[in-house]
């Protein structure tokens, strides 16, 4: 599939944004469960959520470039019953809305206690909103992943690993951003976030590598035999009916070819996972904010490359019909 830049930015940006929200909520929760002694102040969460909102907003903005008729984008919210895309279109603003509320309750310090636990910690409004927000953000990963995972005609995408990877990579990048943010703010959460980011990055590396390997190994079960219904062991396409290009050759083909794919695959493994992992590890150990910021940036670039590869690897069944032109 042709990687559309709007979609690359959309998915990576909101992935990081969602992850950051989840990280903030986790950080807050660490206090609740007693993992950290000190609760961060409201401003920390408010600013963090605002950063997440910026990421989500940029993603949303990028998504409009994917639509040829964005003025009727609202219509895309109408088919949530059947369309994962429609569900995403609904859920993304919901997550953003929750993010705003989350930032708001923290920022304005609206934190009435809703429930007190036996360990003397209590569930206040900010935490409750956080849980809902994080839940929605996690759900949004699933929804986004499902948009691709449910395209049966692209074998490379049509698996639960697509969803797993969207969750893992999104969270990893979100936590890395959170670690960097915490380090800048000299927050005690830095260590927690860095540790989480490291684990998540390594998990994402594992799950994504598995999917890479799986896709690389799997043979296409689709044949020209059933595509054109002719039962002959040797079928070749001679022409696709036109010598120029068409939507079907532009949208579903990958510009560049094998070499570009190999380079970008190496790049995303290095920049998306290995390098950030090292930088997070060192940053965690030294508390060097610059290193964590660099890790977040490298990882983002790496994930952009990852997303490119993800699209480019998608070999759509329809390509059976567009193999040769003469």
């Amino acid at each position: 599939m042709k990687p559309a830049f709007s979609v690359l930015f959309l998915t990576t940006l909101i992935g990081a944004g969602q992850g950051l929200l989840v990280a903030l909520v986790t950080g807050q929760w660490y206090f609740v469960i007693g993992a950290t002694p000190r609760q961060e102040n409201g401003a920390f969460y408010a600013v963090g959520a605002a950063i997440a909102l910026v990421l989500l907003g940029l993603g949303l903005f990028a998504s409009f470039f994917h639509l040829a008729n964005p003025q009727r984008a609202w219509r895309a919210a109408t088919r949530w019953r059947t369309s994962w895309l429609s569900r995403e279109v609904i859920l993304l603003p919901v997550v953003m809305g929750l993010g705003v509320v989350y930032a708001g309750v923290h920022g304005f310090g609206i934190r009435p206690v809703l429930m007190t636990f036996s360990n003397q910690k209590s569930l206040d409004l900010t935490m409750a909103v956080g849980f809902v927000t994080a839940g929605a953000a996690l759900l949004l990963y699933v929804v986004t992943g499902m948009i691709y995972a449910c395209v049966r005609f692209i074998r490379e995408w049509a698996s639960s690993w697509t969803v797993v990877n969207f969750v893992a990579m999104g969270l990893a990048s979100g936590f890395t951003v959170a670690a960097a943010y915490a380090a800048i703010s000299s927050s005690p959460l830095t260590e927690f976030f860095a540790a989480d980011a490291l684990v998540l990055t390594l998990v994402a590396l594992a799950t994504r590598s598995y999917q890479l390997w799986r896709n690389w190994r799997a043979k296409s079960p689709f044949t020209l035999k059933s595509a054109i219904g002719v039962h002959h062991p040797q079928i070749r396409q001679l022409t696709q009916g036109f010598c120029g290009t068409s939507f079907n050759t532009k949208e579903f083909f990958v510009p560049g070819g094998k070499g570009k794919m190999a380079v970008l695959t190496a790049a995303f493994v290095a920049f998306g996972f290995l390098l950030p992992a090292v930088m997070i590890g060192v940053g965690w150990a030294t508390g060097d904010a610059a290193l964590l910021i660099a890790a977040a940036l490298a990882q983002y670039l790496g994930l952009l490359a990852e997303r490119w590869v993800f699209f480019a690897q998608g070999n759509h069944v329809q390509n059976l019909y567009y193999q040769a032109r003469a």
Partner: protein
Amino acid sequence: MKDPVTSRDTEFGPSEVKTTTCYMCACRCGIRVHLRGGEVRYIEGNPDHPLNQGVICAKGASGIMKQYSPARLTRPLKRKEGAERGENAFEPISWDEAFTILGDRLAHIRATDPKKLALFTGRDQMQALTGLFAKQFGTPNYAAHGGFCSVNMAAGMIYTIGGSFWEFGGPDLDRAKLFVMIGTAEDHHSNPMKIALSKFKRSGGRFIAINPVRTGYAAIADEWVPIRPGTDGALLLALIREIVEMGLFDREFLIRFTNAAELVNMDPASDEFGLLIRDPSVTAEPGCFDPENRLWWDRLTDRPTIARSEGSDGRLIGAFELPDGTAVKPAFQLLKDRVKDCTPEWAEGITGIPAATIRRLAHEMGVTARDHKIELPIAWTDAWGREYDTIVGNPVAFHSMRGLAAHSNGFHAIRALGILMSLLGTIDRPGGFRHKAPFPRPIPPCAKPPKGPEGVKPNEPLGGMPLGWPADPNDLFVDAEGEPVRIDKAFSWEYPLSVHGLMHNVITNAWRGDPYPIDTLFLFMANMAWNSSMNTVEVRKMLTDKHENGEYKIPFIVVTDAFQSETVAFADLVLPDTTYLERHDVMSLLDRPISEFDGPVDSVRIPVLPPLGESKPFQEVLIELGSRLRLPAFVNADGSRKYRDYPDFIVHFETEPGSGIGFLSGWRGKSGEKFLVGEPNPSQWEMYARNHNHFHYELPRSYQYMRNWNRGYLTWARHHRLVRFAEPIVIHLYSEVLQKFRLAAEGKRKGKQPPAHLRERVKDFFDPLPFYFPPLEWHQTNTSAFPLAAITQRPMAMYHSWDSQNAWLRQIHTHNALFVHPSVGAANNFGDGAWVWVESPWGKVRCQARFTEAVEPGTVWTWNAVGKASGAWGLSPDANESRHGFLLNHVISEELPALISGRTVSNSDPVTGQAAWYDVRVRVTPAAADEPAESWPQFTPLPQVPGQTGFTGTLRAFFAGKARG
């Protein structure tokens, strides 16, 4: 969005429907053109038209994009002062000026030496008018595309059975059981062939395709018989042999309707050697074409008898002696002798088709013809008065076209096909081959070229037809030395039966001044600087070549085209024509009409749009020029203009004053009550329009078959002036006409004699029976250095060069590649998609190769005329057609140097002058890695010309009538 079910197309704007005739190709289907706001909204096939019955092809349906082409010429143009030919630099002029320039020039030529005007036309559908103009002007130098197209098919068949494929007849697939298609990709009968072929297949008919390539029609064949190009003659002779040896021929048919049983003089000492024995005591009626005075050997009385006399039965086999001692043999015996050694094994070695397959094919043909006879309950009477209760058909049908025709051995291969069809008894019978009016014609037809230079006189019409049918050497158009009078050397001893001329040599000959220089080359609808010339690179140079004094070797070139073709660039004067949607036109019985098996059909075009800009129908140009030049047919006795315009001309012109024969055969007579013959009818156009633009006369059923010998039909045809004679047209299994030329070459016949250096050639090739010889070019080519045969094919979705300007069609064939069998790549070290050099002894091109398994491995092929010169046809200079596409013509030579006694002749069939496009041999080698991935040769990009429609912008979202609701 509006509901598609309740909203109507008319809501986008009021529309109207007009009918006319398509000319996206020469098939000439009826169309209904829907207009919205003055723009073409939809072109559909006219269901009420006999030819296409409502269907339309890819080209026809893309007529809209031709109408709005960026290559349209809209103003008369004169080559810019100081600009060179080929630069495409013009200044617009008025029609008045154009007519003055041209009229003065032509008047001078006509008054001095009319043959200095060479008028040649390409895929012209108005040869009746262009030919009339040439004849009236007095120049013999006129022809259309036939000579480089398929004259072998016309001549080979017409000299054998009095009719042909092409537009003159075809296979009766309604009733055939076995259909054999040889060397046909698309042909002129595009839509009708497809309609018929699918019906045939669906009704269980068996379809065999003999072709080096399996595409298009051959794709749906039940059996594909791949053959090496140029070798069909051998295959056909082997089939004939097998059918003769197995007794699978239709004896009754041969005896009665062909000259198979007629006796041939076998006395080598006689001047009549090889001619049919004729009884001098039979008195021929005056005006008789071919008296019934031939003899056969009566089987019942064992004596020679006038052939076909009641109560006698000719022998086909044997050798006899006449009472006067002359040795004679039935023609059939000679044929049998001829094919004796043409065994399937022999043919296998030549054609590459396994002997067992050849045998089986022969048996399938013979057994189907014999055992699946059709008998229609139609009573008829033959020309000798015998009455029949039924019409019998042997349901084996053939069709063939340029795969046979476009070779230098095509004439004899096609004669062999005609003979095979005759042996099977499938001529003008149900399920076999059927004629279309005005065929069958006498063998050969009556029209003759002038007999010598005296036929060409200043200020006089030509003393004969520019094109005709020589019946013996005295009909040749040569001077006292036996040298050609025509610029293309047609009807000379080099190509005696070149009945369609040799357009492919005109430029070369005129440039060389051989046989003489000309003044004005007038081209209409022919892309002679590109795809319709062989050796294109050199021919383009000839068009611009100058004498030492700085004058062009071809002094003046006029091009009439509707579009900015490659040839336009070489013109001194450009006359912009209209499109087919903008003009009146006739498809006349005087030319090649669209007749059906059941009777004559002719048709018209009626404009559905006004001419664009200043474009003017070429028909009007000719009427105007004819009137200005005071050519007799175009002026009254007092020299005043006779016809207001072309429609007026069509209605009122008669071949001779009062003849009642004109261009259109329908609704003649004062009020349209007559047909074929009758006084002019002023409302004829309206009557055609009312009848969906055509006239169709359906013959009575008893006249629809066996027309060569059908007394009823022949009498009817003579009565309606379709033919001059009502005599039976006996099939020339054995060709006496050819033997007469051979006798002349042997010095045994009085009258015109070939020049010494041509005697051998005429003797060799004017064999009264078909024989196989490898294409002439192979005699000269080192076939191991050039191991591959290179051919082209027509793509179904493109017409010659003229559809690259079509935004829709060009997306289907944006460029062309050379299709090769993978073994060619393996042997020459290149892979699928590699850029390669294709070299012949004559030239080379660089192109891209594609692998295919659907080709005979010794053959490479490409789609014809997709490649374009940069900047032509309104395309941008970097369009794929010019950068990626290529023209095979660059590697094909128009001449074969030193072929006969060191002299050069045209690369053509030695009998008919048919251009031997498909004889060329090539080798294919990979292009070097550092060479650009671009076709070669490239030409300097052509700029647009003044008045050209053009198109700038990267987008065309066509919506007719624009007012989108």
